[in-house]
């Protein structure tokens, strides 16, 4: 079955430390890939996306993600976390064969930043 998996429900990281959030997908072909962030009580903000081309994608707020076709993964990274990065992070995909962009989300990873 088609799915998006975020294996880590919850991650705690110290301010200034590096962060990596995992995302794996299970689809017949490579989908379009997205990472969104949801701060408490807020809507979803796009961090970055991958459609094609360079497999290392730069996003906003110092985030980057790497697409690895062999591992069906699209992991999100940040070298040095700030307290304001505490939020819920969602990986999402759209099938390239989908004419109408139905986003399918992972379950999310909650990131807690400690001083």
């Amino acid at each position, binding site marked *: 079955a088609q799915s998006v998996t975020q294996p880590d429900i919850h991650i705690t990281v110290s301010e200034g430390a590096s962060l990596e959030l995992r995302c794996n997908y299970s689809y017949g072909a490579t989908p*379009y890939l*997205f990472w*969104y962030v*949801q701060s408490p009580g*807020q*809507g*979803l*903000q*796009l961090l970055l*996306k991958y459609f094609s081309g360079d497999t290392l994608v730069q996003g906003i707020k110092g985030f980057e993600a790497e697409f690895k076709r062999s591992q069906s993964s699209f992991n999100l990274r940040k070298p040095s976390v700030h307290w304001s990065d505490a939020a*819920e992070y*969602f990986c*999402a995909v*759209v099938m390239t064969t*989908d*004419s*109408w*962009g*139905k*986003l*399918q*989300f992972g*379950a*999310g990873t909650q990131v807690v930043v400690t001083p």
Partner: protein
Amino acid sequence: DTAVSQTPKYLVTQMGNDKSIKCEQNLGHDTMYWYKQDSKKFLKIMFSYNNKELIINETVPNRFSPKSPDKAHLNLHINSLELGDSAVYFCASSLKTDTQYFGPGTRLTVL
């Protein structure tokens, strides 16, 4: 200069009532969506409209009826509200299948 806006931000109502949520986008997009985020923060698409035409209709009770009066607006009307309808509802918009931009959400609480 809000891109995707929703009203109201909070909605508290009794079971059995009928309520509406409104969404407007000023991005010039042609496609709009409704998503539901449940208490475990899981997001699932409900509906999508392209140029006022319904194109995605997931398995949603027919108590939910979207309406798109024009490309910039997508409303969601819910009849006979139930406890299980309590959730955060997000509107989003995009140009065809390009990146979707989300509104701030409407938190619906059914008592």
